[in-house]
C-alpha cells in the first residue's frame, strides 16, 4: 500500500501543480485546496494511465479521500 502511495505522490504534484504537496491516506478535497470536480477527473485520468486500470463511473463518487483511492486501485489491480 505504501508503494501505491509513493506512486500516487508525483501524480498529485502534477495535477495540483504543487511539489510541496504531501499526501496521506486521510488527504481529501477538504484538506487539499483546489480539489474540485475538474481536478478530480484530471486526477482520475492520470491514475488510470499510471496503473493501467479503469474506474467505473459509479465508483468515482465514492472516492472521498486518498485512502479510498488507494483501496480501489488495489482492488482493481487484483481483478
Amino acid at each position, binding site marked *: 500500500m505504501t508503494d501505491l502511495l509513493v506512486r500516487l505522490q508525483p501524480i498529485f504534484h502534477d495535477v495540483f501543480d504543487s511539489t510541496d504537496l504531501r499526501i496521506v491516506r486521510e488527504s481529501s478535497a477538504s484538506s487539499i485546496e*483546489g480539489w474540485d470536480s*475538474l481536478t478530480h477527473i484530471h486526477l482520475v485520468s492520470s491514475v488510470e494511465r499510471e496503473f493501467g486500470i479503469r474506474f*467505473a463511473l*459509479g465508483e468515482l*463518487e465514492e472516492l472521498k479521500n486518498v485512502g479510498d483511492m488507494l483501496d480501489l486501485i488495489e482492488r482493481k489491480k487484483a481483478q
Partner: protein
Amino acid sequence: MFAFLPVVVAGYYGLCRAKQGLLAQVWMLLASIVFYAWGRLEHLVWLVVSILLNWAIAKIIARTSDVSTRKQWLVLGIGLNICLLGTLKYAKFILTNLSYIFPVPVVLPEVWLPLGISFFTIQQVMFLVDCYEGLVPASRLFDHATFVSFFPCVSSGPISRVRQLLTQIQRTQGPSAQTITGGLVLFAIGLFKKVVLADSFAQIVDLIFNHTKTLSGIQAWLATFAYTFQIYLDFSGYSDMAIGIGLMFGLVVPMNFDAPYRSCSIIEFWQRWHITLSKFITVYLYTPMIRCFKQVSLVKACIVTVLAMLIAGLWHGPSWTFVTFGFLHGLALSVNQVWRKKIKIKMPTILSWLVTFLFVSIAFVFFRSPDMMVAFETCGALLPHGNWFGTELDKVVGRYEIAQLTVLSAVGVLASFLGPTSSQLAQGLTLSRRSALAYASLLLVSFLFMNSTKGHDFIYFAF
C-alpha cells in the same frame, strides 16, 4: 398524506417487528403504487412501462458476456429512456421550435406528464450504467419496482442509487423509535419550510411576476430575492420531508441540500444545491463527456461544463428559460474554474459570497419566468431606470398581510443564512419535553397555515 402516511408507517413497522421482511417490502410497494396512482391512474402505466423496460434490459446486460453487445444494450436502454422522456415531456417543445423553421402546423394530443418522470428516468439510467459496469447485479422485478417507485422520492427525489436504497430495503430490520423520531422532526421542519415560509414568499413572487411590464426597480429586486428564497425553502422543505419519511421506514435517503446560500463560489453552490442531481451531472454526464478526450484541458473542461449544464437546464423543463438557466450556470462554473486555475486572485469572503448570491438570484429569474419575454422584462427592471422606488404593494395587499409576510420572510432569510441545517437539527436531536413541544408546534402551525392560506404545489412536482 396525513392519513396515508401514519397507516403505511404503522403497517410497515408492525410487519418488520413480526419479522415479515418480505411482506413489509410488499406493503411498501403497494403503498408506493397507491401514492403514485392517487393523482392520476394513467400515470401509473408510464411508471410500469419504465420499470419493466429497464428491468428487462438490465437482465439482458447481466447475462451477456460479450462487452460490445453489453454496450449496445446499454446504449439502447439509455436511448429508450430518453425517447420515453422526450416523447412525453419534450415533443411539443421540439415540434413547436421546428415549426418556426419549417412552417407546418403542430397538432399533438394532450399528454399528462407522469409525476416524477424526470427523476425516475435519471435513476433508471444510473441503474443501467451501474449494471453495465458490474457495480450492481440485475435486480428482481419486485426489488426494482420497490426501488424505483419508493413513494417519498418518486415525485421529486432525492435521486437515489440502487446500491444506496435497495440494499437498505432488503436488509432493514425496520425503523427504530429513534429513526421514527428523527424522521418526524425532519418532516415537521420540511413541512414548516414549505407551507409557512416558502408559500409566504410565493405570495410576493406571484403578485410581482404577474405585473412584469410595469415593474419598479425595488419590485424587481424584491421578486428576484423572494423567489430565490421561495425555491430553496420549497424544494429543500420537500427534500427534508422525503428524507424524514425515509427515516420513518428506517432508510437513509441521500441529503439534497446543505445551506447552499452560504456558498462563496458557484462551484461550492452546486456542491450544496440539489446535491443528488449535481452528483448525477458530474458523474454520469460530465465525466463520460470529458473522458472522450485523450487529454483534459481547461478549455475542454469549460466546454463540457457548459454542455452538461445545458442538458441539466433542459432536464428541468421544455422551455428556453430553463435552457438559459443551465447555460448561465455552465458559464459561471467555467468562469469559476478559469478563475481558480489561471487568475488565482483570492477575493474577500464577503465579496465572493455576494457575487455568488447575486448571480444565483438573477439566474433564478429565468427559472421562474413563464417565458423569455418575462425574464428579460424582469432582468431589465433590475437595472437602474426611471421607475425605481415605486412599490405600490399596499394597493393590492393589505397592511396586515404585508406585516405577516415581512415577519415570515425574515424567518425564511435567517434560516437560509444562519444556524444549523435541517439534517444537523435532526442528527443532534436530544429527546426532551421541550424539543417535542417545539417540533409539535412547528407541525401545528404548518397545519393551521395549510387550512388558512392558498397552498401552492411543490415547485419541483412540475418536473
